[in-house]
């Protein structure tokens, strides 16, 4: 083998190497925006399904969206941040219960709201990444208005998950933190879980009534 051949061969080896490694990297390293876009596109696809508006389709959609939520939301991180410092003093068992109740509340209220989707477009404006944290700034363009919706994401096991949504400057996590703080100030973790469950029950009752 002469020198030229050797160089060509090694270049080919490098190229092969790169080609083989690329897909693996791409899967492992989806950027925050890509992850978010995948989730948003999936939700829109589900919502655009004509069966959404039938009475029968309603429950199915909610189930579909709910099972999808775990791929894109870090509910534990979200709950932890919504509680703030008192989280550190909560027993693990109650933390788990709180995450479950809070998730149920978020599902009931927010899944109901996104079903009012009316062909809004999402414009991805900017992405910022630092270590295991990221923030994606987007605009939701409705018929006559533009809303700013920003997402905060955290990387867990090589995948990005949303842990806060900031709509028009109102952070979901911080809004709940101000509520949770009030309740935890007057009561305790069990009391907070009770309050959340009460609200969930009220929402479920209202839902059954309207159907």
């Amino acid at each position, binding site marked *: 083998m002469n020198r030229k051949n050797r160089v060509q061969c090694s270049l080919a080896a490098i190229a092969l*190497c790169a080609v083989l490694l690329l897909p693996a990297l791409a899967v492992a390293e989806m950027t925050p925006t890509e992850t978010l876009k995948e989730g948003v596109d999936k939700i829109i696809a589900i919502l655009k399904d004509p069966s959404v508006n039938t009475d029968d389709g309603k429950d199915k959609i909610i189930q579909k969206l709910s099972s999808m939520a775990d791929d894109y939301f870090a509910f534990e991180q979200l709950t932890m*941040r919504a509680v703030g410092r008192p989280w550190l003093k909560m027993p693990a068992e109650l933390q788990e219960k709180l995450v479950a109740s809070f998730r149920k509340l978020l599902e009931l209220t927010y899944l109901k709201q996104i079903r009012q989707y009316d062909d809004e477009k999402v414009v991805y404006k900017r992405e910022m990444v630092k270590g295991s944290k990221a923030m994606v700034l987007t605009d939701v363009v409705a018929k006559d208005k533009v809303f700013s919706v920003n997402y905060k994401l955290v990387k867990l096991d*090589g995948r990005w998950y949303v842990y806060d949504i900031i709509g028009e400057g109102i952070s979901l996590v911080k809004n709940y933190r101000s509520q949770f703080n009030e309740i935890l100030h007057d009561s305790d973790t069990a009391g907070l879980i009770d309050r959340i469950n009460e609200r969930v029950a009220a929402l479920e009752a209202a839902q059954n009534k309207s159907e």
Partner: protein
Amino acid sequence: MRLYIAIIAFFMVVLSAPVSVMADAGQQDAAIQLAQFEDDEIWTDSGELITDDLNRQQVKVSDPLEGWNRFWFQVNDALYFGVFKPLAQGYAFVIPERPRGWVKNFFENLMYPVRLVGCLLQGKFESAGMETSKFIINSTIGLAGFADLTEGRKTVRPIPTGDEDIGQAFGAWGMGPGPYLVWPVLGPSSTRDTVGYVGEYFITPTTYIHPWYWSVATKSYARINKLTFEIGRYESIVDSSVDPYAAVRDAYLKLRAKKVAE
């Protein structure tokens, strides 16, 4: 041959290294975050990098009059569900959406002095000019403001909207919102925005209708008409919250802070 294997091995190591290093860093971060996750924010909610403690958004709200505020919040809540919402729904049932839109445009056009003063106090002369030309066009060709001819039209170059008021101007001057306040019927406010309201009262044309009860009636009518376009907004906050009072307070203060920043 050995050379190629060496090269391949080298590249594999080089290419995979950043991934594993990043994963390690992530795990480490997570451990630290767990201990101090309240202060681990890198960006503000609007996406600016937090460089020091001064830059950090104020988490604690000032609400020394919580007893008074909570009382009026309850009253307003009952008024909304018991009086204003049914009234708006009944009115919307009788009057179709288009005429209600005209009425909304008319009163919005009439509030031009408030927006103009809000813009001027902040030195936003371009927005002030924009508001002025909008006012002139809508008041004349737009038939006294019933039609909004400028809606959805693009400007030659981007000019920020003139949706300003006096409270926002005070905020732009560096004044904080001060203690949160809930007023009967009027709803959530802050000390700063209350002072703004008072100023706005005097530059709102409908204030000068005589006698005073016609002025009040006109303002109430404008409010109910506007409400028909906003039904469901308040409900969605209340529905999703475990402490509606705290949820509304946070939402009000954050929205105002965002408007001041714009």
